[in-house]
């Protein structure tokens, strides 16, 4: 995942509040992925406009954490979604 790349959730992949289990999940074809706080925080920033660099900078400011660390964690998480075709990157 490069700084300038723009991640998007493609059609058919969406965030969903699971009111029964009281947690955020990512719904995708044949999958429901339970999101922890970090996963949810990252995906909430994915809007199809902002770049990966902008997203991680925003999160670093918001959570008062080093951007490098956030970029590293997010890249792994988003990379796994991308491999399953739950995330597109332009």
């Amino acid at each position, binding site marked *: 995942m490069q700084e300038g790349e723009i991640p998007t959730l493609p*059609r*058919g992949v969406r965030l969903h509040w699971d009111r*029964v*289990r009281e947690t955020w999940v990512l719904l995708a*074809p044949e999958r*429901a992925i339970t999101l922890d706080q970090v996963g949810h925080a990252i995906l909430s920033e994915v809007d199809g406009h902002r770049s990966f660099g902008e997203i991680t900078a925003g999160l670093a400011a918001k959570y008062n954490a080093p951007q490098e660390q956030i970029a590293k964690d997010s890249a792994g998480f988003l990379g796994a979604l991308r491999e399953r*075709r739950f995330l597109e990157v332009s």
Partner: protein
Amino acid sequence: MTTARPPIAMLAELTHRCPLSCPYCSNPIEMARQETELATQDWARVFAEAADLGVLQLHLSGGEPATRRDLETLVRAAREAGLYTNLITSGIGLTERRLDALDQAGLDHVQLSLQGTTPEMADEIGGYRGGFKRKMQVAEWIGAIGFPLTLNAVLHRRNLHQLPRAIEMAVEMGARRIEVATVQFHGWALKNRDALMPTREQAAEATRIVQEARLRLKGTLVIDYVPADYHSDYPKRCMGGWGSTGLNVTPDGQVLPCHAAQTIPHLSFDNVRDKPLSEIWYEGAAFNAYRGTDWMPEPCASCERKTVDFGGCRCQAMALAGDPAATDPVCIKSPHHVDLQARAEAHAAADGAALVYRAAPGKAPEPAE
């Protein structure tokens, strides 16, 4: 008794009617007649109950779900209930207009079945002339609308050589995912083992092709693979564990722990017409019969894989060992394993067996639009 967690997925078999008659159909031999099918408002209520119970994923299946004239209304009801809505279809009965209406109604995903990669093969297996051509047309419309698409190829001895082309077709159609499923011997497929059982060599070749394609198409196409189980050493995990992850509702409202559960004669099933879905899930006798691991006999009871595969498939144990609580005969630890492998070889070597096509339920299927 284990405490059950809420289910994640529900398969709604909207109807057993279908214009195709695939010889491996998973529908029961005794099919529900049209006049016994749940009405639109019954299904809408069941979807709402399912969402309240914790179901996230709804699979609309059949038979052919497009045979129901109210499919668009049902999709809307499912989305309003908050469910992720997946349509499992052969494509027959869908028109451009109906697909647009399904798009409007909020359909999330389409899973299109593939009987073969050529008209000759597909129409022979599906038992429906012109079906392949129609399906290709429907695939184009699906792509034009932009529905996320999974291609679902069912493979067996007659069409396994078409696997490489099936994978290519998925890429050409813009599918994000293909399910490569070797035929599972339940329902009508049990009658067709002589015609459909893959050879051991074919099964190994399929695994090789899948592994190669997964590497080559990484990031382009996700390949989910169901290997030939009679040729395996360990059984497949059943439904993620009986009564742990999913449930099925039949066209007439019976709630099953799995699509083949009706083949187990001692089980009785509750109906959504009589009881709320949550009561059926948590307290129903059929769901509790094989939930967890307490029911297991040896060798499963003391096996380290018991929470990996949950002793395999109950319906397969019934069909092959005559005992639904037995270890799945696919398992290398089952006393029936050796016999099963010998039978698999014999089925695979059977020459010239004719296909036994699935019959139609009570009433003749409606013509496609």
